């Protein structure tokens, strides 16, 4: 599963992100997170990226040869950010029946 993250952070310090079975090529402005990279507090954090070669098998004179077929941004460092405190869950709006009971002064 390929892990992608938008290089530019959102206002709250998080990054848009996506994993997928197949996304080729990596969208512009996004970077690949290596499979073995730990990412605590994801998606809140700072990242460092660098250009990396994309290797692929290419037919050369009838032989399959691994060659550079492109480049993409790759995350080289993940610095965990602060996860904002969750907002309290809002009370659900009353149902029509509950509203009617309130108007009529009926206790449930």
């Amino acid at each position, binding site marked *: 599963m390929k892990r992608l993250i938008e290089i530019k952070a*959102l206002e*709250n310090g998080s990054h848009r992100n996506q994993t*997928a079975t*197949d*996304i080729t090529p990596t969208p512009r402005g996004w970077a690949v997170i290596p499979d073995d990279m730990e990412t605590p507090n994801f998606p809140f954090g700072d990242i460092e990226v660098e250009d990396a070669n994309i290797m692929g098998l290419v037919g050369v004179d009838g032989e399959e040869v691994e060659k550079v077929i492109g480049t993409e941004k790759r995350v080289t460092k993940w610095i965990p950010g602060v996860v904002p405190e969750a907002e309290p869950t*809002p009370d659900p709006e009353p149902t029509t029946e509950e509203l009617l009971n309130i108007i009529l002064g009926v206790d449930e």
Partner: protein
Amino acid sequence: MATNTETLGLKKPSQEDFYNVDDFNENFQKIDDFATGLKNVDNTSDANKPVSTAQEVAIADAKKAGTDAQNNLNSHTSNRNNPHNVTKEQLGLSNIVFGSGSPVGGAIGGGVSVGSGGAVGGNAKAGSGGAVGGYAEADTGGAIGFSARTGRGFAGGYSAKTLDASDNLIDAIQLGYGTNPNAKTLQVYTYQLMNANGLVPSERLPIIEGTYTGTGTHGASNPCSLTFPFTPKVVFIFASTNVDAAFHASMPIIHGCATARIHFRVDASSDRCYSDGIYLTWGDKTLSWYATNATYKAPMQLNASGVVYKYVAIG
């Protein structure tokens, strides 16, 4: 002084000369002589001019010779029986075995080996199938391309092969450079397009699945987005972790629609569900969306902080 006309030489006395009957008679005699010559000219048209007997014979001979030559040429060009007795050695094909010259089937090319099939190309080898190309080999299937090899299937392309782990020919299909080791399957280069049950492998289908982790943001200025390897026709999104914080939200999305409906449970005790509108923006291979629900905020954009959402897209 008298002068003479240019053609007949008639005498033209000058103004000062005296009239002389002899000059007059001499001129008329020249005119008469000239008229006598004109009288003997043959005025017959070209088409009616007489042909001499000798000329008539010569013309007939020439016509017959031309007719005979044309007939001979027609007869020769329609002769399909090698009238010049050309040999295959003269054509540089001394090593080639044609049709009945091969063991059973047909073979063209040096060093070919053929059973009841056909083989074309240097060292091509065919059982009861067909092999075309240098070192191409087919058992009862077909192999086309240099070093293409197959059993009862088909191998097409340079070094296309259908072989098992022991290098035995197997019944499978390989198109393009590569070896297909799985019987009764279709492989193009290194990609299997049909498995042994006749089904297309899931990785070949325009279906993609994945996840994203919510960022806790919402609204038009903070849309969520997904990128796909194709233009999706349908996308399904579900909260898959911490679903209570995500209000058990889910959303089906149809390509091209400007809005979608998110479905979510607002009251776990009563299992009460609501739905709300989501605004969609489509790119060629991207989808972004946002919600403006002021009460439930990010969860209503399927973007609750830290919640992992799972999606499936079908192209």
